[in-house]
């Protein structure tokens, strides 16, 4: 590690879009061999900055200096040749192609006449996959891989070039703990080779585990760089949102009512097996587990979108047959789905229309939709959830992630459900909005809703839940009350280790963990 | 004939046997038509052809339809050559484009008879005979009808058949050439295609009516389009005194003539057309002498002489 010249230096980067100044003179530097975390709320300009770095956008002003040499990168290939590699947050893979082709996408090795040099390609990729401890080969097709493995393919791209700078944009969003360990090892290897790492994540614990320094962006400006060792979450948060946030475990004693939902022996093929639990009015029941543990599929089954192969669902004391989302809604179940853009919202419709969609049949005046009725509902939940939109006419695609999520939550609250299921309530949402949504979930429980929260973030599930159910490979491994849960026993439960682990006794599917 | 189709379609064996039997004692004649179903003329032709073939127990007919597509027609000619039929009758989708296929048939020793509309002159050496109406003459007849009706003076519009098809081109040419020659006082203000389609022709005529304050006559490539034009003129209240001349007299045209709304047309019977074609082909196979241009008669039909003709069945 030479202290003299930073590997990457950004000097006064400005990038504007019509009507928006996305980056307003951002400057910071990344030293060789350091992990430099980049933090900021959604909309703070992180992604724009990364795209500038990767050659996808051209800055309007300012300059990028790599190893002391100012560079101009007109496209991603030029960026790569300058040693700057961006690992995308959203999977950037072509499903029908092989692992090797995806890793070298845009730069397949050539022989004469434009033919692909398969031998060299596969050799190089095999080496990289070995390094990453991947259990699939270069010829494997992407569409046969799990999301976590796809993420590993994405990460493998970091190793294709003699990189000087690798930018990781939310790399752990869908990684299992084992894979996270591999990733962090890789990052340390890169560090040892003198590569500078820019690490973007919303997950504080990761940032404090891996980074050397932290830079914070807010509203397109650089708010400061901190030495990780000399700061704490609170200080970082204050830089990010201008105030501090408490993020503690839930200590409330729930005031529970009757059993709103009881599930007995519910199974759905290989997805999940023999699930049984009770959910009472007035409590938040957290579901924690790895991606692929079957939690989302369980929620979709309760919402009538999958047909269970065995088991019973009891709603308000009587057995319910739920064979469609229409039926689920009629019986008082609401689901805030995992992916708000793909499942939660019609992006081409406005805020109001999205919010009233499930009950549009009941909002009529004569044959027509009642304009007043709709606006009344929208106004009510806009105020209650503090949705920030210029008007109900705004198309939801132009809202921030947090406000979009609130529209989805509002849409389902407006149905006055008996059971509210919320799947990944804060995925991809910035810290400030996160806290608001957490408070909201707690409030809902207090006001008598039966709430089921599915989350992959441990702090979140600890923060909002009265009870927690841990799932591993399609089975419930353990149930905790807020009093008995701690981080250790929860991690053990979702990895199939420790007491009460059903997963060890009879794993479903032969997937080796 | 039809029986054979169903049999062949259901059981493979029966098809094989019948085909084998057919070749032993009867003559097999294959026909590929232009586009059956596009108008009643072709459909009636097909029906008449099949009836005529069934009536003759020595004839086995293979009836195909090109659906208006030249390439498909060529494929069908190839298929017929492949089946070693005794003669091929072709209703060309295009007079020029089928010539090489006809040449192939000729090289394979299979006599070819062209029906309804002729092929290009370059192909004459490969065919035995043409059987059908003379479209150029028909166009000329129509020109004469128009000329008579207008007393050699007036402004007319023309609605032609589907662009690119021989019949349409020949009738237009026959009409225009003869009109210029027989009555220079009648001028064609504009020509637009009506695609053999009554509704299309009606639309074209509606636009003509807007565009031209004075239209003395309308010539249409067939009566189907002619009646469309008449419809348009009637709707605009301008049909009185306007002369409508068509070709290929259709039942609707015949009736309009009966009502005195339609001046005249060319009487062309698809039944005659079909019988003539089949007879020509049989004669060719039997080695009899047939005229190279075997036209059948297509007389003028007007309000005056229409009683001499029976109402067309299509």
């Amino acid at each position, binding site marked *: 590690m030479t202290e003299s010249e930073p590997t990457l230096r950004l000097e006064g980067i400005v990038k504007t879009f019509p009507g928006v100044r996305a980056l307003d003179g951002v400057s910071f530097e990344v030293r060789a061999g350091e992990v430099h975390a980049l933090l900021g709320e959604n909309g703070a300009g992180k992604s724009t900055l990364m795209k500038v770095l990767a050659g996808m956008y051209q800055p309007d002003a300012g300059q990028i200096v790599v190893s002391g040499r100012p560079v101009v990168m007109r496209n991603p290939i030029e960026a790569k040749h300058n040693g700057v590699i961006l690992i995308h947050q*959203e999977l950037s893979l*072509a499903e029908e192609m092989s692992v090797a082709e995806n890793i070298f996408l845009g730069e397949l090795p050539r022989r004469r006449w434009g033919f692909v040099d398969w031998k060299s390609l596969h050799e190089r990729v095999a080496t990289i996959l070995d390094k990453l401890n991947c259990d699939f080969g270069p010829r494997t097709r992407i569409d046969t891989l799990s999301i976590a493995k796809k993420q590993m393919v994405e990460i493998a791209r970091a190793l294709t070039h003699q990189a000087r700078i690798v930018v990781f944009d939310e790399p752990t969003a869908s990684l299992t703990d084992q894979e996270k360990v591999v990733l962090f090892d890789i990052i340390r290897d890169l560090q040892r080779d003198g590569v500078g790492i820019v690490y973007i994540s919303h997950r504080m614990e990761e940032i404090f585990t891996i980074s050397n320094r932290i830079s914070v962006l807010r509203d397109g400006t650089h708010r400061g760089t901190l030495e990780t060792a000399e700061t704490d979450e609170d200080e970082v948060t204050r830089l990010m949102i201008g105030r501090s946030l408490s993020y503690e475990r839930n200590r409330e004693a729930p005031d529970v009512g009757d059993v709103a939902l009881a599930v007995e022996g519910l199974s759905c093929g*290989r997805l999940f097996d023999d699930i049984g639990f009770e959910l009472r009015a007035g409590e938040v029941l957290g579901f924690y587990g790895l991606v692929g543990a079957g939690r989302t599929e369980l929620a979709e089954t309760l919402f009538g979108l*999958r047909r269970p192969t065995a088991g019973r669902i009891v709603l308000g004391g009587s057995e319910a047959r739920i064979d469609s989302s229409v039926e689920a809604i009629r019986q008082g179940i609401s689901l805030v789905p995992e992916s708000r853009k793909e499942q939660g919202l019609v992006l081409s419709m406005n805020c109001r229309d999205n919010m009233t969609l499930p009950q549009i049949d009941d909002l009529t005046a004569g044959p027509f939709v009642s304009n007043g009725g709709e606006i009344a509902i929208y106004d009510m939940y806009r105020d209650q959830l503090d949705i920030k939109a210029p008007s109900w006419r705004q198309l939801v695609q132009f809202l921030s992630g947090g406000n979009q999520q609130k529209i989805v939550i509002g849409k389902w609250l407006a149905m006055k459900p008996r059971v509210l299921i919320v799947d990944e309530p804060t995925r991809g949402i910035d810290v400030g909005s996160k806290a608001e949504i957490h408070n909201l979930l707690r409030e809902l429980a207090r006001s008598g809703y039966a709430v089921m929260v599915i989350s992959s973030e441990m702090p979140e599930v600890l923060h909002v839940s009265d009870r927690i159910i841990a799932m591993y490979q399609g089975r419930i491994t353990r149930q905790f009350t807020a009093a008995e849960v701690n981080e250790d026993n929860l991690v053990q439960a979702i990895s199939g280790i420790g007491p009460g682990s059903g997963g060890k006794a009879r794993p479903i599917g032969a997937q080796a963990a | 004939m039809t029986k054979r*189709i169903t049999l062949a*379609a259901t059981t493979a064996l029966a098809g094989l046997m019948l085909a084998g039997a057919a070749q032993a004692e009867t003559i097999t004649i294959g026909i590929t038509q232009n586009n059956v179903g596009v108008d009643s003329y072709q459909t009636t032709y097909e029906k008449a052809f099949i009836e005529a073939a069934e009536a003759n127990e020595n004839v086995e007919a*293979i*009836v195909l339809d090109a659906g208006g597509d*030249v390439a498909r027609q060529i494929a069908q000619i190839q298929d017929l050559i492949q089946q070693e039929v005794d003669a091929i009758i072709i209703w060309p989708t295009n007079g020029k484009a089928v010539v090489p296929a006809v040449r192939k048939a000729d090289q394979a020793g299979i006599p070819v008879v062209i029906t309804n509309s002729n092929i290009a002159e370059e192909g004459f050496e490969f065919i035995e005979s043409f059987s059908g109406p003379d479209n150029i003459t028909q166009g000329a007849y129509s020109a004469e009808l128009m000329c008579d009706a207008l007393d050699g003076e007036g402004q007319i519009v023309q609605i032609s058949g589907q*662009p690119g098809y021989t019949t349409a081109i020949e009738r237009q040419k026959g009409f225009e050439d003869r009109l210029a020659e027989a009555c220079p006082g009648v001028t064609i203000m504009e020509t637009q295609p009506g695609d053999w389609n009554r509704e299309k022709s009606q639309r074209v005529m509606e636009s003509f009516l807007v565009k031209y304050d004075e239209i003395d006559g309308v010539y249409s490539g067939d009566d189907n389009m002619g009646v469309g034009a008449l419809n348009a003129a009637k709707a605009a209240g301008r049909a009185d005194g306007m002369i409508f001349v068509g070709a290929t007299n259709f039942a609707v045209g015949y009736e309009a003539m009966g009502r005195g709304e339609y001046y005249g047309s060319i009487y062309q019977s698809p039944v005659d057309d079909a019988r003539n074609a089949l007879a020509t082909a049989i004669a060719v196979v039997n080695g009899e002498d047939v005229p190279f241009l075997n036209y059948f008669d297509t007389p003028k039909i007007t309000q005056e002489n229409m009683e001499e003709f029976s109402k067309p069945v299509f």
Partner: protein
Amino acid sequence: MAQVLSTPTAPRLSGAFRWLLRHPIWGFVAVVFIFFSFATAHFFDVQNLQNVLVQTSTIGLIALGMTLVMINGNIDLSVGATLALAASLTVDIMGWPVFADWGNWQLLPAVLAGLAAGVAIGALNGIIVWKTGVDAFIVTLGAMLGVRGLVFVYTEEQSFYAMNFAYSDFGASSIGPLPTLAVIFIVCAIAIHLLLSQTVHGRNTYAVGGNREAAVNAGIRVGPHMVVNFMIVGFFAALAGITLSTQMGASTPNLGRDYELWVITAVVLGGTKLTGGAGNIIGTLGGVLAIGILRNGMNLMQVPAFYVLVILGTILIAVLFLDKQLNRKGEEELRL
């Protein structure tokens, strides 16, 4: 998510069966082939099979290029009109007085001009799609009308006839046991198969169609890439127009009507996704042959033309349905 549990359960299948599962259309081709071999006397003749090859080659050539464009996630509806334009140009130009004393060499500038026109129309479509960002369906729907208009304006609604019989002799000639046109088709199919499966451009075709964002991120120049594929389909539409006109020794302005629909049908039957990213030439060949054999076989069986339309339409939908059934994920799937 579900894959985590389900990957290892895929049963071991024999190679041939797996191949068939990837290209179900070839199973269908085999079935109709066997059916017609028994059902009609003349189907299973060398001569007839040669005919089938020549007859399919027109649709087949265009389908090769269309496969590329459709894997890209685009579509080209203007191929039928482009075919007519190329055919008309070629047949007309060889008769120009300038080339009168060129002998058979007069074919050369004519054919080149025809092919160039096809490539130019392709390039125009491609550039419009690239630069305006308008959906290829719309761009080429417009071109389908417009280019047909150009054909009629250029030909003045007339057919052209190739005075030089060498032209139509070429269309009727054979190389060994195979008709020349079939050989051209087979050679082109092999070339495009190699292009798609072995070259950088071919692999990028899948990337652009499968995940355009990823392709852009990876630095593939998506716009020019798509233009190249449009030019390829334009080239093949023109080539098909020329081979078709050698069969006729002539061209007509109505040539190639509805071909776009049959080409797309063949390509989709062959397993290419309309959304892009998936497909291959082997499947496309199966799709083209399926339609060609059905048409030829029904001709030989003398199925009346009216019924042919119904049968073709029904089979098309049935094959689509079967394909869907083969690719079903089973009971557990999300019911949307």
